[in-house]
Protein backbone atom coordinates (compact mmCIF):
# COMPACT_ATOMS: atom_id res chain seq x y z
CA UNK A 1 0.00 0.00 0.00
CA UNK A 2 1.31 3.43 -0.91
CA UNK A 3 0.21 5.80 1.83
CA UNK A 4 0.19 9.42 0.79
CA UNK A 5 1.46 12.24 2.94
CA UNK A 6 -2.12 13.33 3.58
CA UNK A 7 -2.97 9.99 5.15
CA UNK A 8 -0.03 10.20 7.53
CA UNK A 9 -1.05 13.67 8.57
CA UNK A 10 -4.39 12.15 9.54
CA UNK A 11 -2.70 9.30 11.38
CA UNK A 12 -0.53 11.53 13.52
CA UNK A 13 -3.31 14.06 13.94
CA UNK A 14 -5.53 11.41 15.51
CA UNK A 15 -2.76 10.31 17.88
CA UNK A 16 -2.14 13.94 18.79
CA UNK A 17 -5.79 14.64 19.50
CA UNK A 18 -6.01 11.46 21.51
CA UNK A 19 -2.98 12.64 23.52
CA UNK A 20 -4.66 15.97 24.26
CA UNK A 21 -7.83 14.15 25.25
CA UNK A 22 -5.99 11.87 27.65
CA UNK A 23 -4.17 14.86 29.11
CA UNK A 24 -7.50 16.40 30.03
CA UNK A 25 -8.48 13.08 31.54
CA UNK A 26 -5.34 13.17 33.68
CA UNK A 27 -6.15 16.74 34.65
CA UNK A 28 -9.42 15.49 36.13
CA UNK A 29 -7.75 12.52 37.83
CA UNK A 30 -4.78 14.50 39.20
CA UNK A 31 -5.96 18.06 39.72
CA UNK A 32 -2.77 18.90 41.61
CA UNK A 33 -0.38 18.02 38.76
CA UNK A 34 1.04 20.84 36.60
CA UNK A 35 -1.04 21.04 33.42
CA UNK A 36 1.89 21.53 31.03
CA UNK A 37 3.59 18.43 32.35
CA UNK A 38 0.47 16.32 31.77
CA UNK A 39 0.22 17.54 28.17
CA UNK A 40 3.90 16.90 27.45
CA UNK A 41 3.72 13.44 28.98
CA UNK A 42 0.59 12.37 27.12
CA UNK A 43 1.78 13.69 23.78
CA UNK A 44 5.12 11.91 24.18
CA UNK A 45 3.39 8.69 25.16
CA UNK A 46 1.05 8.89 22.20
CA UNK A 47 4.01 9.53 19.95
CA UNK A 48 5.39 6.18 21.11
CA UNK A 49 1.99 4.53 20.56
CA UNK A 50 1.91 6.04 17.09
CA UNK A 51 5.33 4.60 16.23
CA UNK A 52 4.34 1.17 17.53
CA UNK A 53 1.10 1.49 15.58
CA UNK A 54 3.19 2.00 12.44
CA UNK A 55 4.84 -1.35 13.12
CA UNK A 56 1.42 -2.99 13.45
CA UNK A 57 0.32 -1.41 10.16
CA UNK A 58 3.48 -2.58 8.45
CA UNK A 59 2.84 -6.09 9.73
CA UNK A 60 -0.84 -5.99 8.78
CA UNK A 61 0.09 -4.86 5.30
CA UNK A 62 2.36 -7.89 4.93
CA UNK A 63 0.01 -10.37 6.60
CA UNK A 64 -3.48 -8.99 6.25
CA UNK A 65 -6.49 -10.80 7.70
CA UNK A 66 -8.44 -11.71 4.59
CA UNK A 67 -11.62 -13.07 6.13
CA UNK A 68 -13.41 -14.28 9.23
CA UNK A 69 -13.04 -17.85 8.06
CA UNK A 70 -11.37 -20.38 10.38
CA UNK A 71 -8.77 -21.03 7.76
CA UNK A 72 -7.33 -17.62 8.53
CA UNK A 73 -6.66 -18.39 12.21
CA UNK A 74 -2.93 -17.89 11.68
CA UNK A 75 -3.34 -14.26 10.72
CA UNK A 76 -5.76 -13.65 13.59
CA UNK A 77 -3.40 -15.28 16.08
CA UNK A 78 -0.42 -13.37 14.73
CA UNK A 79 -2.12 -10.01 15.15
CA UNK A 80 -3.46 -10.93 18.58
CA UNK A 81 -0.02 -11.95 19.86
CA UNK A 82 1.79 -9.05 18.30
CA UNK A 83 -0.69 -6.51 19.61
CA UNK A 84 -0.28 -7.92 23.14
CA UNK A 85 3.49 -7.71 22.79
CA UNK A 86 3.36 -4.22 21.36
CA UNK A 87 0.97 -3.03 24.05
CA UNK A 88 3.29 -4.47 26.73
CA UNK A 89 6.35 -2.84 25.23
CA UNK A 90 4.56 0.46 24.64
CA UNK A 91 3.27 0.58 28.16
CA UNK A 92 6.78 0.05 29.51
CA UNK A 93 8.11 2.96 27.46
CA UNK A 94 5.07 5.04 28.42
CA UNK A 95 5.75 4.31 32.06
CA UNK A 96 9.37 5.44 31.71
CA UNK A 97 8.20 8.62 30.05
CA UNK A 98 5.73 9.30 32.83
CA UNK A 99 8.49 8.79 35.44
CA UNK A 100 10.91 11.10 33.63
CA UNK A 101 8.32 13.79 33.08
CA UNK A 102 7.01 13.44 36.63
CA UNK A 103 10.34 13.73 38.40
CA UNK A 104 12.20 15.66 35.77
CA UNK A 105 15.26 13.68 36.80
CA UNK A 106 16.70 10.74 34.84
CA UNK A 107 18.58 9.06 37.71
CA UNK A 108 15.59 9.10 39.96
CA UNK A 109 13.27 7.88 37.24
CA UNK A 110 15.26 4.73 36.68
CA UNK A 111 15.48 3.78 40.30
CA UNK A 112 14.93 0.03 40.42
CA UNK A 113 12.85 0.01 43.55
CA UNK A 114 10.59 2.66 42.17
CA UNK A 115 10.23 0.73 38.92
CA UNK A 116 9.39 -2.52 40.58
CA UNK A 117 6.78 -0.87 42.75
CA UNK A 118 5.08 1.33 40.19
CA UNK A 119 5.17 -0.80 37.07
CA UNK A 120 2.61 -3.48 38.02
CA UNK A 121 0.19 -0.80 39.12
CA UNK A 122 0.71 1.06 35.86
CA UNK A 123 0.05 -2.10 33.88
CA UNK A 124 -3.08 -2.92 35.83
CA UNK A 125 -4.40 0.56 35.19
CA UNK A 126 -3.57 1.00 31.52
CA UNK A 127 -2.83 -2.33 29.81
CA UNK A 128 -6.37 -3.18 28.72
CA UNK A 129 -7.06 0.23 27.34
CA UNK A 130 -3.83 0.37 25.37
CA UNK A 131 -4.37 -3.09 23.99
CA UNK A 132 -7.69 -1.77 22.71
CA UNK A 133 -5.85 1.09 21.04
CA UNK A 134 -3.57 -1.35 19.25
CA UNK A 135 -6.58 -3.32 18.09
CA UNK A 136 -8.15 -0.11 16.92
CA UNK A 137 -5.08 0.56 14.77
CA UNK A 138 -5.16 -2.93 13.26
CA UNK A 139 -8.94 -2.70 12.85
CA UNK A 140 -8.77 0.72 11.21
CA UNK A 141 -6.10 -0.50 8.84
CA UNK A 142 -8.26 -3.43 7.76
CA UNK A 143 -11.32 -1.25 7.49
CA UNK A 144 -9.45 1.11 5.19
CA UNK A 145 -8.11 -1.81 3.24
CA UNK A 146 -11.56 -3.29 2.67
CA UNK A 147 -12.90 0.11 1.73
CA UNK A 148 -10.15 0.56 -0.84
CA UNK A 149 -10.72 -2.89 -2.27
CA UNK A 150 -14.40 -2.20 -2.50
CA UNK A 151 -13.69 1.12 -4.21
CA UNK A 152 -11.29 -0.52 -6.66
CA UNK A 153 -13.86 -3.19 -7.41
CA UNK A 154 -16.45 -0.53 -8.01
CA UNK A 155 -14.15 1.27 -10.42
CA UNK A 156 -13.36 -2.03 -12.12
CA UNK A 157 -17.03 -2.84 -12.47
CA UNK A 158 -17.70 0.56 -13.95
CA UNK A 159 -14.85 0.04 -16.40
CA UNK A 160 -16.16 -3.37 -17.30
CA UNK A 161 -19.57 -1.97 -17.94
CA UNK A 162 -18.15 0.80 -20.08
CA UNK A 163 -16.10 -1.69 -22.10
CA UNK A 164 -19.09 -3.88 -22.60
CA UNK A 165 -21.16 -0.96 -23.74
CA UNK A 166 -18.37 -0.11 -26.13
CA UNK A 167 -18.12 -3.65 -27.44
CA UNK A 168 -21.85 -3.77 -27.82
CA UNK A 169 -21.67 -0.53 -29.68
CA UNK A 170 -18.96 -1.83 -31.92
CA UNK A 171 -21.01 -4.96 -32.50
CA UNK A 172 -24.06 -2.94 -33.30
CA UNK A 173 -22.08 -0.74 -35.55
CA UNK A 174 -20.62 -3.78 -37.27
CA UNK A 175 -23.98 -5.37 -37.68
CA UNK A 176 -25.47 -2.15 -38.74
CA UNK A 177 -22.14 -1.31 -40.23
CA UNK A 178 -23.15 0.83 -43.16
CA UNK A 179 -21.08 -1.22 -45.55
CA UNK A 180 -22.52 -4.47 -44.43
CA UNK A 181 -26.08 -3.23 -44.40
CA UNK A 182 -26.01 -1.39 -47.70
CA UNK A 183 -24.16 -4.13 -49.53
CA UNK A 184 -26.71 -6.60 -48.22
CA UNK A 185 -29.57 -4.42 -49.40
CA UNK A 186 -27.86 -4.10 -52.76
CA UNK A 187 -27.57 -7.87 -53.00
CA UNK A 188 -31.27 -8.12 -52.24
CA UNK A 189 -32.14 -5.68 -54.98
CA UNK A 190 -30.22 -7.88 -57.42
CA UNK A 191 -31.93 -11.02 -56.15
CA UNK A 192 -35.40 -9.51 -56.38
CA UNK A 193 -35.23 -9.75 -60.16
CA UNK A 194 -33.07 -12.75 -60.73
CA UNK A 195 -34.15 -14.98 -57.87
CA UNK A 196 -37.21 -13.78 -55.93
CA UNK A 197 -37.03 -16.75 -53.53
CA UNK A 198 -33.41 -15.97 -52.83
CA UNK A 199 -34.34 -12.36 -52.17
CA UNK A 200 -37.02 -13.52 -49.74
CA UNK A 201 -34.52 -15.72 -48.01
CA UNK A 202 -31.96 -12.95 -47.76
CA UNK A 203 -34.50 -10.53 -46.32
CA UNK A 204 -35.43 -13.01 -43.60
CA UNK A 205 -31.74 -13.62 -42.83
CA UNK A 206 -31.18 -9.91 -42.52
CA UNK A 207 -34.26 -9.76 -40.30
CA UNK A 208 -32.92 -12.54 -38.05
CA UNK A 209 -29.65 -10.80 -37.82
CA UNK A 210 -31.04 -7.40 -36.96
CA UNK A 211 -33.37 -8.96 -34.38
CA UNK A 212 -30.46 -10.65 -32.63
CA UNK A 213 -28.55 -7.43 -32.37
CA UNK A 214 -31.57 -5.65 -30.97
CA UNK A 215 -32.13 -8.42 -28.45
CA UNK A 216 -28.54 -8.35 -27.25
CA UNK A 217 -28.64 -9.66 -23.67
CA UNK A 218 -27.87 -7.15 -20.95
CA UNK A 219 -25.41 -9.47 -19.22
CA UNK A 220 -21.88 -10.14 -20.31
CA UNK A 221 -22.01 -13.91 -20.54
CA UNK A 222 -24.26 -15.86 -22.89
CA UNK A 223 -24.47 -19.55 -23.70
CA UNK A 224 -22.17 -20.53 -26.54
CA UNK A 225 -25.22 -21.63 -28.52
CA UNK A 226 -26.48 -18.03 -28.57
CA UNK A 227 -23.19 -16.61 -29.64
CA UNK A 228 -22.97 -19.18 -32.42
CA UNK A 229 -26.53 -18.49 -33.57
CA UNK A 230 -25.53 -14.89 -33.92
CA UNK A 231 -22.39 -15.77 -35.88
CA UNK A 232 -24.48 -18.06 -38.10
CA UNK A 233 -26.91 -15.27 -38.90
CA UNK A 234 -24.00 -13.03 -39.80
CA UNK A 235 -22.32 -15.69 -41.90
CA UNK A 236 -25.59 -16.63 -43.61
CA UNK A 237 -25.68 -13.17 -45.11
CA UNK A 238 -21.98 -13.05 -45.91
CA UNK A 239 -22.27 -16.41 -47.60
CA UNK A 240 -24.85 -15.11 -50.05
CA UNK A 241 -22.74 -12.06 -50.69
CA UNK A 242 -19.48 -13.96 -51.12
CA UNK A 243 -21.38 -16.72 -52.94
CA UNK A 244 -19.19 -19.71 -53.56
CA UNK A 245 -16.15 -17.82 -52.30
CA UNK A 246 -16.96 -18.39 -48.64
CA UNK A 247 -17.10 -21.87 -47.18
CA UNK A 248 -17.91 -22.29 -43.52
CA UNK A 249 -17.19 -25.31 -41.35
CA UNK A 250 -18.36 -25.43 -37.75
CA UNK A 251 -17.36 -28.11 -35.28
CA UNK A 252 -19.02 -27.50 -31.95
CA UNK A 253 -19.91 -30.57 -29.87
CA UNK A 254 -23.44 -30.52 -28.49
CA UNK A 255 -22.26 -30.80 -24.89
CA UNK A 256 -20.50 -27.45 -25.13
CA UNK A 257 -23.49 -25.47 -26.32
CA UNK A 258 -24.55 -24.34 -22.86
CA UNK A 259 -21.14 -23.21 -21.67
CA UNK A 260 -21.06 -19.50 -21.16
CA UNK A 261 -18.89 -17.11 -23.14
CA UNK A 262 -18.72 -13.31 -23.21
CA UNK A 263 -21.35 -12.12 -25.67
CA UNK A 264 -20.17 -10.80 -29.06
CA UNK A 265 -16.68 -12.11 -28.34
CA UNK A 266 -16.44 -14.31 -31.45
CA UNK A 267 -17.84 -11.85 -33.86
CA UNK A 268 -14.85 -9.52 -34.19
CA UNK A 269 -12.67 -12.60 -34.69
CA UNK A 270 -14.90 -13.91 -37.47
CA UNK A 271 -15.08 -10.49 -39.01
CA UNK A 272 -11.29 -10.28 -39.01
CA UNK A 273 -11.02 -13.70 -40.60
CA UNK A 274 -13.34 -12.62 -43.39
CA UNK A 275 -11.61 -9.31 -43.86
CA UNK A 276 -8.00 -10.44 -43.81
CA UNK A 277 -8.45 -14.05 -44.72
CA UNK A 278 -11.08 -14.04 -47.40
CA UNK A 279 -12.13 -10.77 -48.90
CA UNK A 280 -8.57 -10.03 -49.92
CA UNK A 281 -8.51 -13.21 -51.97
CA UNK A 282 -10.56 -13.24 -55.13
CA UNK A 283 -10.80 -17.04 -55.03
CA UNK A 284 -12.27 -16.92 -51.53
CA UNK A 285 -11.59 -19.44 -48.82
CA UNK A 286 -12.75 -21.51 -45.91
CA UNK A 287 -13.63 -20.32 -42.45
CA UNK A 288 -13.43 -22.91 -39.67
CA UNK A 289 -14.99 -22.48 -36.26
CA UNK A 290 -14.16 -25.10 -33.63
CA UNK A 291 -14.94 -25.50 -29.95
CA UNK A 292 -13.45 -28.03 -27.57
CA UNK A 293 -12.86 -28.42 -23.87
CA UNK A 294 -10.58 -30.15 -21.44
CA UNK A 295 -10.80 -30.23 -17.67
CA UNK A 296 -9.95 -26.56 -17.25
CA UNK A 297 -10.44 -24.71 -20.49
CA UNK A 298 -13.01 -24.03 -23.15
CA UNK A 299 -11.10 -23.53 -26.38
CA UNK A 300 -12.61 -21.65 -29.31
CA UNK A 301 -10.80 -21.50 -32.63
CA UNK A 302 -11.41 -19.31 -35.64
CA UNK A 303 -9.33 -20.28 -38.63
CA UNK A 304 -9.09 -18.94 -42.15
CA UNK A 305 -6.92 -20.06 -45.05
CA UNK A 306 -6.04 -16.58 -46.24
CA UNK A 307 -2.69 -14.94 -46.58
CA UNK A 308 -1.69 -15.20 -42.93
CA UNK A 309 -1.91 -12.69 -40.15
CA UNK A 310 0.78 -10.08 -39.78
CA UNK A 311 1.21 -8.88 -36.23
CA UNK A 312 1.61 -5.31 -37.38
CA UNK A 313 -2.03 -5.32 -38.31
CA UNK A 314 -3.77 -6.04 -35.05
CA UNK A 315 -6.86 -3.95 -35.58
CA UNK A 316 -9.29 -2.25 -33.24
CA UNK A 317 -11.67 -5.21 -33.19
CA UNK A 318 -9.00 -7.47 -31.75
CA UNK A 319 -7.88 -4.77 -29.36
CA UNK A 320 -11.37 -4.52 -27.93
CA UNK A 321 -11.63 -8.31 -27.60
CA UNK A 322 -8.37 -8.32 -25.64
CA UNK A 323 -9.46 -5.48 -23.42
CA UNK A 324 -12.78 -7.14 -22.62
CA UNK A 325 -11.17 -10.50 -21.90
CA UNK A 326 -8.67 -8.81 -19.61
CA UNK A 327 -11.41 -7.16 -17.62
CA UNK A 328 -13.69 -10.19 -17.40
CA UNK A 329 -11.10 -12.89 -16.69
CA UNK A 330 -8.25 -10.88 -15.16
CA UNK A 331 -5.58 -12.63 -17.13
CA UNK A 332 -7.19 -16.05 -16.63
CA UNK A 333 -7.63 -16.54 -20.37
CA UNK A 334 -5.60 -16.61 -23.55
CA UNK A 335 -6.00 -15.12 -26.99
CA UNK A 336 -3.37 -16.30 -29.41
CA UNK A 337 -2.90 -15.47 -33.05
CA UNK A 338 -0.90 -17.70 -35.26
CA UNK A 339 -0.36 -16.55 -38.82
CA UNK A 340 1.48 -18.60 -41.40
CA UNK A 341 2.18 -16.58 -44.55
CA UNK A 342 0.23 -18.01 -47.43
CA UNK A 343 -1.47 -20.62 -45.25
CA UNK A 344 -3.87 -18.66 -43.14
CA UNK A 345 -4.46 -17.49 -39.61
CA UNK A 346 -5.57 -19.37 -36.53
CA UNK A 347 -7.02 -17.45 -33.63
CA UNK A 348 -7.29 -19.44 -30.42
CA UNK A 349 -9.34 -18.22 -27.51
CA UNK A 350 -9.07 -20.18 -24.25
CA UNK A 351 -11.54 -19.37 -21.52
CA UNK A 352 -11.42 -20.81 -17.99
CA UNK A 353 -14.20 -23.35 -17.49
CA UNK A 354 -14.80 -22.05 -13.98
CA UNK A 355 -16.44 -19.02 -15.54
CA UNK A 356 -17.96 -20.90 -18.45
CA UNK A 357 -19.73 -23.40 -16.20
CA UNK A 358 -22.42 -20.94 -15.14
CA UNK A 359 -24.88 -23.50 -16.45
CA UNK A 360 -24.12 -27.13 -15.76
CA UNK A 361 -22.15 -28.59 -18.68
Amino acid sequence: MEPSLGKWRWYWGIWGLLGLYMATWDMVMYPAAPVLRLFVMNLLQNGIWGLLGLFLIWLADRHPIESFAWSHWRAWLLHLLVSVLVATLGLFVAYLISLVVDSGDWSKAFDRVQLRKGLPRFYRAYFHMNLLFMWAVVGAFHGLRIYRKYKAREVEAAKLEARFAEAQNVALRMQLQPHFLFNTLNSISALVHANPDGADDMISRLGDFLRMTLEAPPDQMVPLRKELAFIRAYLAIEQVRFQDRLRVEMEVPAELQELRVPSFILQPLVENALKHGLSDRPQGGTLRLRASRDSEWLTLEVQDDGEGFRSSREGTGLGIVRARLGLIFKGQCQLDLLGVPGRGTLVTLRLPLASADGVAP
Partner: protein
Amino acid sequence: MNLRALVVDDEALARQRIRDLLRRSTDIELVGECADGLAAVKAIEDLRPDLVFLDIQMPELDGFGVVEAVGAERMPPTLFVTAYDQHALKAFEVHALDYLLKPFSPERFHQALDRARRWCLRAGPEKVPDLEALLASLRQERPWVDRLLVRQGDRHMLVKTSALQWIEAEDNYVRLHVEGTSHLLRQTMSGLLARLDPAQFRRIHRSAIVNLDCIKEFQPWTGGDLMVIMRDGTRLTLSRTYREQFGEWL
Protein backbone atom coordinates in the same frame (compact mmCIF):
# COMPACT_ATOMS: atom_id res chain seq x y z
CA MET B 1 -23.45 4.78 -81.35
CA ASN B 2 -23.17 1.95 -78.89
CA LEU B 3 -21.24 2.46 -75.70
CA ARG B 4 -19.06 -0.37 -74.50
CA ALA B 5 -19.28 -0.75 -70.72
CA LEU B 6 -17.22 -2.65 -68.15
CA VAL B 7 -18.58 -3.59 -64.73
CA VAL B 8 -16.15 -3.99 -61.84
CA ASP B 9 -17.35 -5.28 -58.47
CA ASP B 10 -16.14 -8.06 -56.21
CA GLU B 11 -19.66 -9.20 -55.41
CA ALA B 12 -21.36 -11.27 -58.07
CA LEU B 13 -24.80 -10.08 -57.04
CA ALA B 14 -23.75 -6.46 -57.33
CA ARG B 15 -22.49 -7.08 -60.87
CA GLN B 16 -25.70 -8.86 -61.68
CA ARG B 17 -27.70 -5.87 -60.46
CA ILE B 18 -25.91 -3.54 -62.89
CA ARG B 19 -26.10 -6.10 -65.69
CA ASP B 20 -29.87 -6.37 -65.22
CA LEU B 21 -30.30 -2.62 -65.27
CA LEU B 22 -28.08 -2.20 -68.34
CA ARG B 23 -30.19 -4.69 -70.23
CA ARG B 24 -32.90 -2.04 -70.49
CA SER B 25 -30.56 0.33 -72.32
CA THR B 26 -30.11 -0.95 -75.85
CA ASP B 27 -27.32 1.49 -76.63
CA ILE B 28 -25.03 0.03 -73.98
CA GLU B 29 -23.05 -3.07 -74.69
CA LEU B 30 -21.58 -4.90 -71.73
CA VAL B 31 -18.10 -5.96 -72.81
CA GLY B 32 -16.82 -7.43 -69.59
CA GLU B 33 -17.14 -8.01 -65.86
CA CYS B 34 -14.32 -8.06 -63.35
CA ALA B 35 -14.36 -9.31 -59.76
CA ASP B 36 -11.18 -7.58 -58.62
CA GLY B 37 -9.02 -4.58 -59.26
CA LEU B 38 -6.18 -6.41 -60.93
CA ALA B 39 -8.49 -7.95 -63.51
CA ALA B 40 -10.09 -4.55 -64.00
CA VAL B 41 -6.76 -2.89 -64.87
CA LYS B 42 -6.08 -5.55 -67.46
CA ALA B 43 -9.61 -5.42 -68.87
CA ILE B 44 -9.53 -1.64 -69.16
CA GLU B 45 -6.24 -1.77 -71.03
CA ASP B 46 -7.22 -4.69 -73.25
CA LEU B 47 -10.87 -3.93 -73.93
CA ARG B 48 -10.69 -0.13 -73.91
CA PRO B 49 -14.29 0.29 -72.76
CA ASP B 50 -16.10 3.63 -73.16
CA LEU B 51 -17.53 3.53 -69.67
CA VAL B 52 -16.56 1.78 -66.43
CA PHE B 53 -18.81 1.03 -63.47
CA LEU B 54 -16.24 0.85 -60.72
CA ASP B 55 -16.84 -0.40 -57.19
CA ILE B 56 -14.58 1.28 -54.66
CA GLN B 57 -14.21 -1.40 -51.96
CA MET B 58 -12.53 -4.43 -53.50
CA PRO B 59 -9.96 -7.01 -52.51
CA GLU B 60 -6.32 -6.07 -52.89
CA LEU B 61 -6.60 -3.25 -55.40
CA ASP B 62 -9.56 -0.98 -54.74
CA GLY B 63 -11.36 1.26 -57.22
CA PHE B 64 -9.03 4.18 -56.74
CA GLY B 65 -6.06 1.85 -57.04
CA VAL B 66 -7.43 0.81 -60.44
CA VAL B 67 -7.65 4.43 -61.59
CA GLU B 68 -4.13 5.05 -60.35
CA ALA B 69 -2.74 1.94 -62.01
CA VAL B 70 -4.36 2.66 -65.36
CA GLY B 71 -3.48 6.33 -65.08
CA ALA B 72 -6.10 9.02 -64.53
CA GLU B 73 -5.52 10.42 -68.01
CA ARG B 74 -6.01 7.06 -69.70
CA MET B 75 -9.02 6.06 -67.62
CA PRO B 76 -12.32 5.95 -69.53
CA PRO B 77 -15.26 7.90 -68.11
CA THR B 78 -15.99 6.22 -64.80
CA LEU B 79 -19.07 5.87 -62.64
CA PHE B 80 -18.03 5.03 -59.09
CA VAL B 81 -20.28 2.71 -57.14
CA THR B 82 -20.03 2.36 -53.37
CA ALA B 83 -22.00 1.15 -50.38
CA TYR B 84 -20.51 3.57 -47.93
CA ASP B 85 -17.26 5.44 -47.93
CA GLN B 86 -17.27 8.81 -46.29
CA HIS B 87 -13.83 9.86 -47.50
CA ALA B 88 -14.68 9.02 -51.07
CA LEU B 89 -18.06 10.71 -50.92
CA LYS B 90 -16.46 13.87 -49.64
CA ALA B 91 -14.00 13.83 -52.52
CA PHE B 92 -16.81 13.18 -55.01
CA GLU B 93 -18.73 16.17 -53.70
CA VAL B 94 -15.67 18.39 -53.89
CA HIS B 95 -15.06 17.43 -57.50
CA ALA B 96 -18.76 17.36 -58.43
CA LEU B 97 -18.54 13.76 -59.54
CA ASP B 98 -21.64 11.67 -59.98
CA TYR B 99 -21.61 8.36 -58.15
CA LEU B 100 -23.98 5.53 -57.33
CA LEU B 101 -24.78 4.60 -53.74
CA LYS B 102 -25.80 1.01 -53.12
CA PRO B 103 -28.58 0.10 -53.14
CA PHE B 104 -29.84 2.32 -55.97
CA SER B 105 -33.17 2.51 -57.73
CA PRO B 106 -33.47 1.91 -61.48
CA GLU B 107 -34.44 5.54 -61.83
CA ARG B 108 -31.30 6.76 -60.07
CA PHE B 109 -29.19 4.35 -62.09
CA HIS B 110 -30.52 5.60 -65.39
CA GLN B 111 -30.10 9.20 -64.34
CA ALA B 112 -26.42 8.54 -63.64
CA LEU B 113 -26.14 6.57 -66.83
CA ASP B 114 -27.59 9.46 -68.84
CA ARG B 115 -24.98 11.75 -67.48
CA ALA B 116 -22.22 9.25 -68.17
CA ARG B 117 -23.54 8.93 -71.71
CA ARG B 118 -23.15 12.65 -72.20
CA TRP B 119 -19.56 12.43 -70.93
CA CYS B 120 -18.82 9.72 -73.40
CA LEU B 121 -20.44 11.52 -76.32
CA ARG B 122 -19.11 14.87 -75.11
CA ALA B 123 -22.62 16.09 -75.73
CA GLY B 124 -23.55 18.08 -72.69
CA PRO B 125 -22.61 20.94 -70.49
CA GLU B 126 -20.99 18.62 -67.93
CA LYS B 127 -17.27 18.20 -68.03
CA VAL B 128 -15.86 14.73 -67.95
CA PRO B 129 -14.85 14.23 -64.32
CA ASP B 130 -11.32 15.17 -63.48
CA LEU B 131 -9.98 11.93 -62.05
CA GLU B 132 -6.50 13.34 -61.58
CA ALA B 133 -7.81 16.00 -59.21
CA LEU B 134 -9.93 13.39 -57.45
CA LEU B 135 -6.91 11.18 -56.83
CA ALA B 136 -4.88 14.14 -55.64
CA SER B 137 -7.44 14.99 -52.99
CA LEU B 138 -7.81 11.36 -51.92
CA ARG B 139 -4.05 11.17 -51.48
CA GLN B 140 -4.30 13.78 -48.77
CA GLU B 141 -6.41 11.33 -46.79
CA ARG B 142 -4.41 8.24 -47.62
CA PRO B 143 -0.98 9.45 -48.60
CA TRP B 144 0.87 6.12 -48.64
CA VAL B 145 0.28 3.05 -50.74
CA ASP B 146 0.76 -0.46 -49.42
CA ARG B 147 0.80 -2.18 -52.80
CA LEU B 148 2.21 -1.28 -56.21
CA LEU B 149 0.95 -2.62 -59.50
CA VAL B 150 3.69 -3.84 -61.80
CA ARG B 151 3.55 -5.29 -65.28
CA GLN B 152 5.48 -8.31 -66.38
CA GLY B 153 4.96 -8.82 -70.08
CA ASP B 154 1.20 -8.64 -70.36
CA ARG B 155 0.67 -9.85 -66.81
CA HIS B 156 -0.17 -7.54 -63.95
CA MET B 157 1.04 -8.19 -60.44
CA LEU B 158 0.65 -6.51 -57.12
CA VAL B 159 3.78 -6.03 -55.05
CA LYS B 160 3.43 -5.23 -51.37
CA THR B 161 5.52 -2.22 -50.49
CA SER B 162 6.61 -3.97 -47.30
CA ALA B 163 8.27 -6.60 -49.52
CA LEU B 164 10.34 -4.02 -51.40
CA GLN B 165 13.99 -4.19 -50.44
CA TRP B 166 15.32 -1.27 -52.36
CA ILE B 167 14.49 0.82 -55.38
CA GLU B 168 16.88 1.83 -58.08
CA ALA B 169 16.52 4.65 -60.61
CA GLU B 170 16.72 3.48 -64.23
CA ASP B 171 16.24 6.21 -66.85
CA ASN B 172 12.52 7.00 -66.89
CA TYR B 173 11.74 3.97 -64.78
CA VAL B 174 12.45 2.71 -61.32
CA ARG B 175 13.53 -0.84 -60.63
CA LEU B 176 11.84 -2.44 -57.62
CA HIS B 177 14.02 -5.03 -55.94
CA VAL B 178 11.90 -7.69 -54.26
CA GLU B 179 13.28 -10.90 -52.82
CA GLY B 180 15.21 -12.60 -55.59
CA THR B 181 13.66 -10.67 -58.44
CA SER B 182 13.00 -7.17 -59.68
CA HIS B 183 10.29 -5.25 -61.51
CA LEU B 184 10.34 -2.14 -63.64
CA LEU B 185 7.81 0.54 -62.90
CA ARG B 186 7.20 3.63 -65.00
CA GLN B 187 7.58 6.23 -62.32
CA THR B 188 10.09 8.83 -61.14
CA MET B 189 12.10 8.41 -57.95
CA SER B 190 10.56 11.46 -56.31
CA GLY B 191 7.08 10.50 -57.51
CA LEU B 192 7.39 7.05 -55.98
CA LEU B 193 9.04 8.32 -52.80
CA ALA B 194 6.04 10.58 -52.22
CA ARG B 195 3.75 7.55 -52.15
CA LEU B 196 5.89 5.45 -49.80
CA ASP B 197 5.64 5.63 -46.03
CA PRO B 198 8.67 7.65 -44.88
CA ALA B 199 8.75 5.61 -41.68
CA GLN B 200 9.85 2.67 -43.81
CA PHE B 201 11.49 4.12 -46.92
CA ARG B 202 14.31 6.64 -47.23
CA ARG B 203 16.27 7.94 -50.15
CA ILE B 204 19.96 7.29 -49.68
CA HIS B 205 21.27 8.37 -53.04
CA ARG B 206 20.18 10.17 -56.19
CA SER B 207 19.46 6.76 -57.62
CA ALA B 208 18.45 4.63 -54.61
CA ILE B 209 15.65 4.36 -52.06
CA VAL B 210 15.91 1.70 -49.32
CA ASN B 211 13.48 -0.11 -47.11
CA LEU B 212 14.85 0.58 -43.62
CA ASP B 213 13.78 -2.88 -42.46
CA CYS B 214 16.16 -4.45 -44.98
CA ILE B 215 19.31 -2.65 -43.90
CA LYS B 216 21.85 -4.77 -42.07
CA GLU B 217 24.62 -2.31 -41.38
CA PHE B 218 26.38 0.91 -42.27
CA GLN B 219 30.12 1.11 -42.88
CA PRO B 220 32.30 4.16 -43.32
CA TRP B 221 33.19 4.85 -46.91
CA THR B 222 35.05 7.56 -48.74
CA GLY B 223 34.48 11.30 -48.67
CA GLY B 224 31.77 11.35 -46.03
CA ASP B 225 29.73 8.72 -47.83
CA LEU B 226 28.61 5.57 -46.07
CA MET B 227 28.30 2.06 -47.34
CA VAL B 228 24.88 0.54 -46.69
CA ILE B 229 24.90 -3.25 -46.49
CA MET B 230 21.51 -4.83 -47.02
CA ARG B 231 20.37 -8.09 -45.46
CA ASP B 232 20.72 -9.89 -48.79
CA GLY B 233 24.32 -8.64 -49.13
CA THR B 234 23.66 -5.86 -51.62
CA ARG B 235 25.98 -2.90 -51.10
CA LEU B 236 24.62 0.57 -51.68
CA THR B 237 25.98 4.04 -51.08
CA LEU B 238 24.52 6.55 -48.68
CA SER B 239 25.71 9.82 -50.12
CA ARG B 240 26.54 12.82 -48.01
CA THR B 241 23.60 14.74 -49.44
CA TYR B 242 21.11 12.27 -48.02
CA ARG B 243 23.01 11.43 -44.87
CA GLU B 244 21.29 14.21 -42.97
CA GLN B 245 17.98 12.39 -42.77
CA PHE B 246 19.73 9.58 -40.95
CA GLY B 247 20.99 12.05 -38.38
CA GLU B 248 18.98 10.35 -35.68
CA TRP B 249 21.07 7.20 -36.05
CA LEU B 250 24.39 8.09 -37.61
